[in-house]
């Protein structure tokens, strides 16, 4: 027999109270941990996805949309820009790399991006297997794409039009897998990379084929990046956007203004736009956090009430233990251990709740948005939340042991009748 055993027996003596305390506390801990982790993970994911892209140039429209479409690859593009003009900008001496990209097709929901070899350097992506794209209709797969679709080098597939997997609008020319990139945890993992010519050819070819193609294009005009061309001349070529990495931060100061003022294109800063986006989503995170904190406070009040009730209802039991030779401090320990045990169990359960909750959220994100988010358990978050819980429980314990300190054993025992 020892103090711990008595505390545990006390908890089991009122299993419903104990369960209620543990569950309500665990839910608030789970919510707090979950929302923090999700927030950090999504932010990290976004920041990471940006790679080394300092600036993106595309057709006029919403800068956020441009960033989401051309850098994050989760939104529809704003329109097309002239390849010729893009090339002119690329010659600016402040620019380290300028990568043109063009897209408008997908395979099973994974976007096909036509670009140059430099695209991979923006994401520091190295080849895992195979080789780089040498000629049109060859593709290199991002790591996630290869894994999820179970594609190997030499496999061929037919791409479909737009950004959603469909059987209606399939291109007739098959694409051949020639390489697979190593995992980077960046956006390139879930892209199918080819050269610009593949994209241009696919759509030129189609334009010659059917009359109904025209209707289709009108329908998609706002959403799609490409337009058909009858000529192959470079001057008429269009791309969706130009991704830029600067040599020095000086470029950030001059180039965006130059483009926004003097051309029909717009320049958007991915880091700035993403930050702006988080300001919107941040409100949601804050609200959920506040709700979690309120639940935390309520559950600590529940714990206080159940401990206090225990002390009051079992005053006789406690007085009895005093006549057995227990000191006041030992009685306080009994109550304190009960509170701490509840807190500990709730924290463990809370971590389990948050992790399994996030597991499902991430799986949903993966299915819906083809985004793989790493489920990193943040120890700092756990530590911080546990500290909160610990402080709350200590307050609850302190309040509930007050009757023990002022306990009059003689009075309790003489009122036994």
């Amino acid at each position, binding site marked *: 027999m020892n103090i711990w055993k008595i505390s545990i027996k006390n908890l089991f003596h009122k299993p419903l109270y104990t369960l209620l305390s543990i569950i309500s506390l665990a839910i608030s801990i789970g919510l707090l941990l979950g929302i923090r982790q999700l927030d950090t993970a999504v932010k990290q994911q976004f920041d990471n996805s940006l790679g080394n892209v300092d600036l993106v140039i595309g057709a006029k429209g919403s800068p956020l949309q441009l960033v989401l479409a051309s850098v994050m690859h989760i939104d529809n593009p704003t329109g097309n820009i002239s390849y010729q003009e893009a090339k002119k900008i690329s010659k600016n001496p402040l620019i380290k790399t300028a990568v043109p990209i063009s897209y408008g097709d997908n395979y099973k929901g994974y976007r096909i991006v036509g670009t140059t070899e430099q695209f991979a350097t923006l994401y520091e992506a190295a080849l895992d297997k195979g080789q780089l794209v040498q000629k049109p209709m060859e593709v290199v797969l991002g790591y996630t794409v290869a894994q999820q679709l179970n594609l190997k080098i030499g496999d061929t597939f037919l791409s479909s039009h737009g950004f959603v997997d469909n059987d209606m609008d399939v291109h007739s020319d098959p694409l051949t897998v020639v390489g697979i990139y190593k995992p980077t945890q960046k956006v390139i993992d879930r892209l199918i990379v080819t050269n610009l010519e593949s994209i241009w050819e696919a759509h030129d070819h189609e334009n010659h084929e059917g009359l109904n193609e025209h209707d289709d294009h009108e329908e998609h005009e706002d959403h799609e990046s490409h337009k058909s061309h009858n000529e192959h001349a470079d001057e008429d070529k269009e791309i969706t956007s130009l991704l830029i990495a600067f040599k020095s931060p000086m470029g950030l100061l001059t180039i965006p203004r130059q483009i926004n003022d003097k051309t029909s294109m717009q320049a958007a800063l991915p880091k700035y736009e993403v930050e702006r986006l988080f300001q919107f989503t941040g409100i949601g995170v804050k609200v959920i956090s506040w709700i979690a904190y309120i639940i935390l406070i309520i559950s600590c009040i529940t714990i206080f009430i159940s401990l206090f009730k225990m002390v009051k209802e079992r005053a006789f*039991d406690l007085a009895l*233990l005093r006549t*057995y030779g227990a000191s006041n401090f030992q009685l306080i320990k009994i109550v304190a251990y009960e509170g701490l045990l509840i807190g500990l169990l709730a924290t463990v359960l809370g971590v389990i709740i948050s992790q399994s909750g996030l597991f499902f959220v991430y799986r949903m994100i993966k299915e819906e948005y083809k985004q793989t988010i790493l489920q990193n358990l943040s120890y700092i978050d756990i530590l911080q939340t546990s500290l909160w819980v610990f402080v709350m429980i200590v307050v609850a314990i302190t309040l509930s042991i007050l009757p023990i300190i002022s306990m009059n054993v003689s009075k309790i025992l003489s009122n036994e009748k």
Partner: protein
Amino acid sequence: MIHTENLTFKYHQKETVFQFPDIDLNQSENLLILGKSGIGKTTLLHLMAGLLKPNSGTVTIADVSLQSLNSKQLDKFTGKNIGLVFQKNYAVRSLNVMENIQARLFFCKKKVDNSAITNLLQQLNIENCKSKKINELSEGQLQRLGIALSVIHEPKLILADEPTASLDDKNCQAVMSLLLDQAKKNIANLVVITHDQRVKPLFQNILEL
């Protein structure tokens, strides 16, 4: 061996000052304290048990004056040397019979001797209740558990507060003989306070308040 001298006690915010006659018991001597309710029987018992501090006077048990001990020493000393029996015998409700006895021994820092426990429970005829919860016991079993809890740690003094008040004649006899028997076995002094006249014939020493 218990000895009280010039004990007086006054409850906070009350006028009445209780003055108690001196008590002097040698080894194995028992005492019955009779008196009407409100006369301070329980107060005297709690003074002897160290649960109340007298306004004046001393209580000496086994040559140790309770007034000379600090509160921590007092807890340990009374826990070790005194066994208390109540009218309605209570045990800790979240623990079962065996655990109550173990807790009793834990808090007064006595070793758990399983054969001694079994032996005592057999004498009290509650050996088969070892793993029963407190609320599963009958009134009589609870009473006997109360006696077990008051003697398991081999105290020098057993103090019983109205142990027979709610019992019929037969059970009254049974409880009293168990208490006297256990006091004798432990070479302890038994002090019983009661207003129950049925107990009178069992004692040589009687103090009327």
